[in-house]
């Protein structure tokens, strides 16, 4: 047996958590002088669900394609379990990619699609069938689908077929290129949970890319935020949510209120707003930066409230029902703030009437310029 061929028998018996399964060392990729990925260093632990988030053009797809072997890094090395895979083609790598388009073979049945990697490895047909049916059970596809044409399957079923086919390859690392982006909201939520369950069940390392931080939050153990070919922040969903390191990461998370501020006598002021703002306690306090307040941390300030350090007066411009919560747009001068409150704390004020909104210093995030 050639040592380059992926076979689970020759895997070392490493316990989960014993060293990274994947290591990127200074990986860089340029296309005709255009830098798609800029010197990425990253370690992914065994069995981890790692998600790379970034807007389109941030280099996340290029990075994933390098991991799969469809692109080769201009510089740097990709190491899987201590062995460089940099020069290996996709069919010799212990990774398998689930494509955005899923790339199911339209001329094959569900069963034949799932058995494809086994057939390539010359597994006898009877064994292939047993394994395919096992995988179909795992991804919750009914047994009757075995002989069904893939082109006749629904979107969700096709997802499951693609997943089962990738698992049939038995990779060390499963790579996902936004496979859920074309799926409607409700089904996507179901599939996100199923994917997370499957991750637990198989114990394999998952590397997932998406442009939706919300999707990343639901599934991941750790998240890497990418921008302009760089990983700007890597951390747990909790880290990313509560301690974003820059303005881009904050804004990428969805609707947030960002105040550009400059220091003045121990506090901060913002051009166009009256009042002085207290930065969150602890941490450095550079002369310039941004105070970021999430909509759910902005609240309406009653007249007898003395604990809210930061208060602004504005007018309610519009309100939206988000189901269990209400969202308000509050205009202050030429700025618009977004306030989200549960219905219990809903604002009684009518539109176009002045309201006081504010936040506790501890709830805000301060990021340097």
């Amino acid at each position, binding site marked *: 047996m050639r040592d380059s061929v992926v076979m689970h028998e020759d895997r070392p018996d490493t316990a989960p958590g014993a060293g990274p399964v994947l290591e990127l060392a200074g990986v860089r990729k340029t296309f005709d002088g255009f830098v798609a990925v800029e010197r990425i260093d990253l370690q992914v632990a065994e069995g981890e669900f790692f998600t790379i988030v970034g807007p389109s053009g941030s280099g996340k797809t290029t990075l994933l394609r390098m991991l*799969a072997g*469809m692109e080769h890094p201009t510089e740097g090395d990709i190491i899987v379990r201590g062995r460089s895979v940099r020069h290996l083609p*996709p*069919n010799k790598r212990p990774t*398998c990619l689930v494509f955005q388009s899923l*790339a199911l073979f339209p*001329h094959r049945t569900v069963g034949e699609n799932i058995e494809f*990697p086994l057939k*390539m490895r010359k597994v006898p047909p009877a064994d292939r069938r047993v394994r395919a049916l096992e995988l179909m059970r795992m991804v919750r596809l009914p047994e009757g689908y075995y002989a069904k044409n893939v082109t006749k399957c629904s979107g969700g079923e096709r997802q499951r077929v693609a997943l089962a086919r990738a698992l049939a*390859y038995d990779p060390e690392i499963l790579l996902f290129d936004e496979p859920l982006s074309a799926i409607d909201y409700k089904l996507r939520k179901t599939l996100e949970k199923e994917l997370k369950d499957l991750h637990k069940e198989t114990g394999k390392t998952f590397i997932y890319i998406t442009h939706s931080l919300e999707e990343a939050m639901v599934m991941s153990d750790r998240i890497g935020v990418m921008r302009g070919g760089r990983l700007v922040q890597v951390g747990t969903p909790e880290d990313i949510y509560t301690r974003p390191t820059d303005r881009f990461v904050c804004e990428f998370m969805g609707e947030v209120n960002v105040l550009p501020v400059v220091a003045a006598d121990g506090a901060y002021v913002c051009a166009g707003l009256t009042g002085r703002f207290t930065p969150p306690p602890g941490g450095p306090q550079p002369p310039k930066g941004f105070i970021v307040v999430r909509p759910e941390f902005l609240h309406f300030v009653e007249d007898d409230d003395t604990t809210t350090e930061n208060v602004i007066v504005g007018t309610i411009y519009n309100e939206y029902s988000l189901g269990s919560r209400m969202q308000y747009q509050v205009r202050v001068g030429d700025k618009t703030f977004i306030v989200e409150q549960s219905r219990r704390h809903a604002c009684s004020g009518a539109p176009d009437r002045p309201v006081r909104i504010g936040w506790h210093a501890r709830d805000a995030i301060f990021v340097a310029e």
Partner: protein
Amino acid sequence: MNPQEQRLRRARLMTAAWTGFVLLVIYLPVLCSALASLGKGRYFLFPIRGWSVDWWARTLDSIEIGMLLRTSLALAAAVTVVAVAAGFFGALAFARYDWSGRRLYQKIVLLPIFFPQPVLGLALLLWFNAVGMEMSWRTAIVAHLVWIVPVVTLVIAIKVYGFDPALEEAAFDLGASRLQVLREVTLPILWPGIWSGALFAFLLSWGNFPLSLYTTGADSTVPEWLYAKMIAGYTPMVPTLGTMSTIAAASALGIGALAAMLMKRRRAA
């Protein structure tokens, strides 16, 4: 019946009538030659006085005709094999891969189709002479290919354009070798395009006259013989062979369509 239904019915009737008329105009000449082949007389005169299949029997028995058919068949078969092989890879270069000379290639590959065939035939004849090749049906293979490969390339390229390159990447990623990718994914998916390309190649070669005229040398193909006999020495074997040829081509198409249908049904099952 309300007026709207009536109008719809009338429109349907008119469509059917028009379709019938067009088909009649197209197939009347073919029908006439079939009728001419079934006459008893030596000359083609309407109305046909006596019917017979005598000329069909004589055509089938003729050694000369047998040779013509063998030559035409060998020529068309050779052209089909080479044109499909060249056209398949040509189509991948045309529609699938991005390479530096691609735009130029896409234009140049089409030029022979626009070149008048008699001129192309003559040019090839001069060229074959210049390099000292002896003319036979084998040189005609080269001549036919010049014109037919671009057509086959285009026919297959249309199918390649609709082919998601991610499928090949996925197969490669799932452990297939380059050869396995070709055999398991690329070829089966492009198969309908390859099949129509082959059909085109065969029929275009089978019916080609201007290129064969200049480049077959002493050998003669069916269209060449038909032309020569019509110019001088008409015999009812001309319409007979013409009709036979048409029937053969129609059956080839029919068998092709049937094979495609059966394959589709098997896949759907």
